[in-house]
């Protein structure tokens, strides 16, 4: 089994921008390449770098792309050149630091300049943030519905007495279930998203349907030129 071809996405000091991450992951997906995210630390730079890799890998996994994350330190051009020698089938490099690599790195280097602030940490922070927010919401709604349940069941006797009086008192159980379904429903909805169970986009569903009926898979390799034998040669 041959190793998959790879794209190398390189950034300094974990400054992967959102554009770069999206572009490299989607490109890898379109080309059916694997992806290696390489974080090059400056020699004097010291900060724990475990979050970035996780986020990168998660994004890639969501798109069905094989992704590895590597951390090296030193000069960015030297590191990339060494890395491509020791890792097989790295086809090209995507980075925001093309200038520094020119003349040293011997494989194609594509530059991607983000029009956002090139602070990658902001992206990571946002991803983390939205997750935190979701967790916060889940807990808040969870507590709210727990409190509502506690309120009803601790006073079960009184509640039952009034709620079953009939007539206009009928409004009470109806309003109660509405209120519960809003609080508890919001909790349930957030809980599933927090667990990573989200709806697949409609387009994706249709695409899946199409692919399953496609007859045969083509080989991954691009067609190569073959020798042509002239049938009239003998004449």
């Amino acid at each position, binding site marked *: 089994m041959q190793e998959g071809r790879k794209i190398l996405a390189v950034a300094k000091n974990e400054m992967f921008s959102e554009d770069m991450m999206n572009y490299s992951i989607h490109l890898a*997906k*379109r*080309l*059916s390449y694997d992806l290696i995210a390489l974080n090059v630390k400056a020699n004097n730079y010291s900060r724990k770098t475990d979050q970035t890799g996780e986020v990168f890998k998660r994004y890639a996994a969501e*798109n*069905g*792309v094989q992704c590895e994350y590597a951390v090296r330190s030193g000069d960015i051009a030297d590191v990339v050149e060494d890395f491509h020698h020791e890792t097989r089938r790295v086809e090209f490099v995507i980075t925001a630091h093309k200038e520094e690599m020119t003349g040293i790195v011997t494989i194609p280097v594509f530059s991607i300049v983000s029009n956002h602030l090139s602070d990658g940490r902001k992206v990571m922070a946002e991803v983390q943030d939205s997750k935190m927010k979701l967790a916060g919401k889940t807990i808040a709604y969870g507590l709210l*519905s727990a409190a509502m*349940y506690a309120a*009803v*069941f601790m006073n*079960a006797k009184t*509640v*039952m007495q009034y*709620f*079953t*009086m*009939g*007539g206009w*008192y*009928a*409004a*009470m*159980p*109806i309003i*109660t*279930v*509405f209120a*519960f*379904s809003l609080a*508890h*429903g919001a909790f*349930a*909805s957030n*809980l*599933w998203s927090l667990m990573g*169970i*989200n*709806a*697949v*986009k*409609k387009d*994706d*569903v249709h*695409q*899946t*349907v*199409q*692919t*399953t*009926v*496609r007859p045969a*898979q*083509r080989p*991954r390799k*691009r*067609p190569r030129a073959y020798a042509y034998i002239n049938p009239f040669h003998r004449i």
Partner: protein
Amino acid sequence: MQDLAQNAVQFIDLNWISVSFLFIMGFIGGLVSGFIGSGGAFVLTPGMMSLGVPGTVAVASNMCHKFPKAMIGAFKRFKYGQVDIKLGLVMAASAGVGVQAGIKLQNMILNRWGQVGSDLYVSVSFVVILVIVGGYVFYDALKTSDSSGAEKVSLIAKKLQSINLPPMIHFKQANVRISLWFTLPVGFATGMLAATIAVGGFIGVPGMIYIMGVSSLIASATELVIAFVMGLGGSINWAMHGMVDIRLTLIILAGSLLGVQLGAIGTTYVREHVIKIVMGTIMLIVAVSRGLAIPKYLNQLHLISLSESSLKLMGQISFITMCIALAVGAFIILGSMWKARRPAETTYALEESYEEV
């Protein structure tokens, strides 16, 4: 009237076993109804009765949990663009009439043949309808899964859509243009079945699919709107008689709100024929379960004679079969969600590479 209800009805004491039973049943029932638009009620009502809840309270409490559950499920699926609100409301209106007719018919049978006759009528109609409709849904699901997997509009639906009998209604989301006169019987039958066996969706969803030509995704989602409207009306009616045991309702709701959302999410993972498979399977197993209840009524009418113990056994098997129906449905849903999760990603990548070459 209200005092009478108060005195006659015994509300049960709850313990941990009954609470967890209701919660789990609520969850599975919610999962199934989020996915196929209805279901769960047929297990919950007898389930509650087996805990010692009186029949009317069980029906009332069940219905009172059904409409908020349907509301949340419908809302969730509305966000995925699967709900045709206009279709839901038109169907719900005619279903409302159907419910009234169903109750009238039930009372007529009750007056003429008594409780046993009424029970027998319910069970027989259960079995007959479920076997015919469920069998067809299941057969159709197998057929579509064998061929390309794409859903085809049935011949009857095509024919009915081509008849230009005013007033014609265009249902935008469902992308169907059909005469109002053909939607009414479907809604009416849904309501009638809801009044008889408490699960209108077993006729509403196949009716929308095969008679009106709506896709099963939209039909099952729209059924939730119908369930909401009818459930709300029914619940208000029961609550006015003071029959709703809010504790039971809330416990079931706790489970079913989790389930209904998972089921709704599940519809976006799978191919459309899975909805039909789940529906057909559940309907057929439930038919078996109700079929097992028939000898009891025949015995009471002295048409056959069976020993007390064997009748009791059949009753128990009937209830267990019903639970199995729901469990099998939930199993298929979760299984196909699990399976759909991975291949969706890989085949997608494959297709793209194929286009690049």
